[in-house]
């Protein structure tokens, strides 16, 4: 094996052993990652949407019509 790949190989093997070897760990990791990914994705897309629709949504103009 190439000497420059030794570090990567070691890292890959440790990743494989900790996460991928047991299917239960793998599946739990998938669902946990999906949960985190969804939260991050939703937050990011909501923020983007609010920025694109600034001063157009009810929550932005609510103060003008406060009782």
């Amino acid at each position, binding site marked *: *094996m190439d000497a420059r790949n030794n570090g990567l190989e*070691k890292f890959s093997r440790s990743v494989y052993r900790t*996460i*991928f070897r047991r299917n239960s760990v793998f599946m739990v990791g*998938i669902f946990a*990652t*999906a949960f985190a990914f*969804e939260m991050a994705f939703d937050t990011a897309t909501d923020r983007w949407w609010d920025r694109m629709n600034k001063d157009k949504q009810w929550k932005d103009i609510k103060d003008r019509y406060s009782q």
Partner: protein
Amino acid sequence: MVNLTKLAATVNRTHITAPYSANSIRKLLDGSKYVHKESQKIITPSWFVGASRRCDGSIHLKTALSAAPYIGNIQKRLSSSAAVDSSKSTIVPDFSGYKKHSGPNTSRTFTYLMVGATGTLTAAGSKAFVTDFLANLSASADVLAMAKVEVDLAKIPEGKNLTIKWRGKPIFIRHRTPDEISEANSVQLSELKDPQTDAERTKNPEWLVMLGVCTHLGCVPIGEAGDYHGWYCPCHGSHYDISGRVRKGPAPLNLEVPEYSFENETKLVIG
């Protein structure tokens, strides 16, 4: 094997008339010494076994020398005056740029990582699909806003009825007197068609809140009427008592009690 086949190719040439003595063969091999040296690089010559690209560009499959066709590298070689370097006739591209440099552990981990990433995206996507689909089925904000009705109880004096509209249906609200409450509590459950205590039908005995739709065929009963001083349905003559329980007539069930709550002493929220 290389040498033997070279030899065979050489001795098969038609213009060689010399006897196949060891001497003549050695002379032949000496004369084509550079061929051996060059062909050492190739473990199996491409013209001997396997597929190769012919000079006209087409793929040509060779299994053995004996199966050599008339056209192609072998034919050319056979017709030449000297043994020709085989590596010159077959151009093997340089594949080193396409070769993988990572080790087996890295490849395996990368593959599993791709599988896991696909699973992650699939799980997140299907969850979002299901939740969005179900959210689409649920009531929208304008419907929910219409679904609740607030009633000011301070305007209803004791012993009076109020009828309001809620979700397209009438709601009866009665401010009962202490006499009426004790009358509702004095009824034996055994004499009821749909046995229910008054406590089950009211949150605060002072206030009776129920759906003003007869459980028989959906008419609206008349208040403060009937044999039991409660409600009377004029359509088919069902009598309800002061707790809205059916006492007489074709109605099978008591008047329905909607979801409601007391926000404070004087404010009732239905829905």
